């Protein structure tokens, strides 16, 4: 499903203009430094539900923006 992303500078634009950016979130429960590096480099929350995400408007204003989106429905909630 093609979704539209609200860009604060360019308005509502199709997702094809953006590049997805993961916001790394290493859980506090991981204490070991090496394990934290590994988690930061590769592991993903990939939640079924609302997550905060960063998008880069590469075919627009070329700035980063943040949204909150429900990954079950693609609804942008904030």
């Amino acid at each position, binding site marked *: 499903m093609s979704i539209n992303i609200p860009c604060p500078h360019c308005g509502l634009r199709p997702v*094809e203009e953006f590049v997805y950016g*993961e916001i790394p979130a290493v859980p506090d429960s991981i204490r070991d430094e090496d394990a934290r590096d590994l988690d930061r480099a590769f592991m*993903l929350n990939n939640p*079924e539900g609302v997550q905060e995400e960063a998008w880069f408007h590469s075919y627009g204003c070329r700035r980063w923006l943040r949204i909150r989106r429900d*990954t079950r429905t*693609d609804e942008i909630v904030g």
Partner: protein
Amino acid sequence: MSHKLENKSMNEFKEKKIRLEWHEPKSSYDVIIVGGGGHGLSTAYYLATRQGITNVAVLERKYIGGGNSGRNTTIIRANYGIPEAVRFYQHSLELYRNLEAETDRSIMHKEKGLLWLAHTEAALRQQKARAELNKLFGANTEFIGPKEIQEICPQIDLTGGGVWPVLGASYNVDAATARHDRVNWALAEGALQRGVHIHQRTAVTNLIMSGDKVTGVETNQGPISAKLVVSAVGGHVTTLAAMAGLRLPIRTHPLQAFVTNHYAQNFEPIVASASLLFYVSQTARGEMLMGAEIDRQPSYSYRSGHHFLQNCAFRALILLPFLRNLRILRQWTGVCDMSPDYSPIMGETGIEGFYITTGWGTWGFKAIPAGGEQMAQLIATGQTPELIAPFSLDRFANDRTKADRGSAGTH
């Protein structure tokens, strides 16, 4: 001659019916496989047929083969981009070839050959290198020029609409397609007949842990204990793994596909173009089946969109102008577990009693037999087979990622 036809010749084509006979659930099994898709059923099938392990249950949230195993474009090929993958997928391709004889069921397996088209100098060199690499590691891939491409597939416009000229292709001669439902059912039947249990509408709600060890699953039908739990979940694997405190390098993206109405002529090969990012083949019903790359946003949504149809159709028309006379019949979406290096993740998880087969992204269907066979061997022996050792989860920690540009749907 009587009006009633003597149906002898027709009866030769009458198929043997697939019989799926279900069992009552038990409270404990040796092995529980979560996920009744191709990989889960295949693991169960090979456990029963090759390893003699039948005290096994496959738990499926909805109905078997209803996830990605029923939503893919059914392409079986081995022309991958790294040695480990070529070996693995070639083995799978060979297992598929024998699957009809082995199960005595029709899976509508048809060898078609796959053309991977190159439109630029750089792509040309890439496809040449790919053919050489494939040959070296056992896959039957040739590099061919425009003239041979035209002979294999007269429908391709070699000028590419004047913009995407077809300069050459790597030709995976052994590539094939099969009917996905039948693959699932044949494997399920083979497993059921040998005593494996398959429980549909049984959703795993939690993993039962005893210390650091996985000892069973909580389901909507009650708890079931097991010596070993294998996750063959597609789509929702991150959620399942999290129940065991395991984090995965998986991001879930939707992938869309569509079919047109019946094309009256024969369209022999599977055609793919990495530059134009689409792949197309003809189904047994004559429909033209098309897919492209994954949707950009990570998502679990099964919603399809018009934007994809427009994009994919536009690109396909550049090379196959005859498609403009066809109409799109239906469209659907699956959710793919994309790994960061476009290779699968199979084997131990570092958690006792919990194995995993995931990261099947857009390349899962072709790997069903080999993935199941190798996972079954791992379960039976406790030793990771050589063929899948490169695809273990710890490759990310050990700096041994398997970046594979031969995977489809990547961008």
